[in-house]
C-alpha cells in the first residue's frame, strides 16, 4: 500500500514549479531538475509497488521498493536532458495518475482485512479506558461505549471509501461528541453518586 507520504511527495514538485517561475534561470533549472527527480521518485515507487508481488503488505519489500525507486529516479533525473516546464507538469500529472490508479479495490480489501485482524489500530480505545476510569460500568456500557463503537464504524466506513481526510474528520467529530457526552453525563453521575452516598450514611 502506498503511504500517505507518497501523496505529499507531490507537494515539493508543485512548490519547485512555482518557484521556478519567480526565480532566475539558473535557479529555475535546478529547481525543475529537483522537481523532476521527486516526480520520478514517486512514479518509480508506484510502478515498482504495482509490479513487484507482495510489496503492498510486507514492510521489507516496501523498503526495497523505496530504495530501488530512489536509485532509478536519481539516474533518470541525471541522464535526462533539461526538461521544459511543460514536461515537468506532465511528469507530475502522470505520477499523480499512477498514484490514483494504484489505489485499486484489491488493495482496499487488503487494508480492510488487515484492519479486521488488528483492532489495536482502531481509534477510541484510550477514550474507553478514560470512560471506564471515570464512570460506572452501566454508564460506560450504555452511553460511552456505543459512542466509541459508532466512531470506529464510521471511521472504518470512511477508510473503506479511501477517504483518509474524511476519516480524520470523523475521528475529530466523534472525539468532540465523546467529550460532549462526558460533559452532559458528569453532573447526572455526580448527583447519583452523592445520592447513593447520602443514603449509605447511618
Amino acid at each position, binding site marked *: 500500500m502506498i503511504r500517505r507520504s507518497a501523496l505529499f511527495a507531490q507537494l515539493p514538485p508543485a512548490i519547485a514549479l512555482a518557484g521556478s517561475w519567480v526565480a532566475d534561470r539558473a535557479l529555475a533549472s535546478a529547481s525543475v531538475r529537483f522537481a523532476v527527480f521527486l516526480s520520478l521518485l514517486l512514479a518509480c515507487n508506484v510502478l515498482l509497488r504495482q509490479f513487484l508481488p507482495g510489496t503492498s503488505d510486507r514492510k521489507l519489500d516496501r523498503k526495497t521498493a523505496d530504495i530501488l525507486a530512489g536509485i532509478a529516479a536519481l539516474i533518470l533525473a541525471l541522464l535526462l536532458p533539461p526538461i521544459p516546464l511543460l514536461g515537468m507538469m506532465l511528469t507530475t500529472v502522470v505520477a499523480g495518475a499512477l498514484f490514483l490508479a494504484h489505489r485499486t479495490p484489491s488493495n482496499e480489501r487488503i487494508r480492510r482485512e488487515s484492519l479486521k485482524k488488528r483492532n489495536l489500530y482502531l481509534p477510541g480505545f484510550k477514550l474507553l479506558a478514560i470512560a471506564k476510569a471515570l464512570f460506572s460500568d452501566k454508564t460506560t456500557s450504555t452511553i460511552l461505549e456505543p*459512542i466509541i463503537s459508532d466512531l470506529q464504524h464510521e471511521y*472504518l466506513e470512511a477508510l473503506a471509501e479511501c477517504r483518509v481526510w474524511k476519516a480524520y474528520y470523523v475521528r475529530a467529530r466523534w472525539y468532540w461528541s465523546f467529550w460532549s457526552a462526558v460533559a452532559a453525563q458528569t453532573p447526572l453521575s455526580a448527583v447519583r453518586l452523592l445520592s447513593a452516598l447520602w443514603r449509605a450514611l447511618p
Partner: protein
Amino acid sequence: MDEIPRLSRKERLILELLINQGEMYGLEMVKTVPHDLKRGTVYVTLGRMADKGYVDSRQAKEPGDPGLPKRLFRATGHGQRVFQAWELARTAMVEGLV
C-alpha cells in the same frame, strides 16, 4: 407509578423513530434526523430513557466486524404507551386550541 411520565422533545422524537423503524443504534438515529439529534447527546438521552424504562438495548456483534459491538435500542411496551398517551394529549390540546 405515581408520577405522570414526561417526555422531552428529543425523547419523543427518539421514541417515534424506534416505534416506526424498529431497532436502531445511535448513529442511525442521528443520520435519520441530523438537525434534531446530535452525536454527543443522543446516547445520553437514550441512557436517560433507559433509566425511565422507555427503551431497552442489547449489544449486537456481527461476525468478522472489527471494533466494539454496536448497541441497538428499541422501544419498550411502557415507552410505546407513554408515546401514544403523549400523542393523544397533544392532539387533544391542539384540537382544543383550534
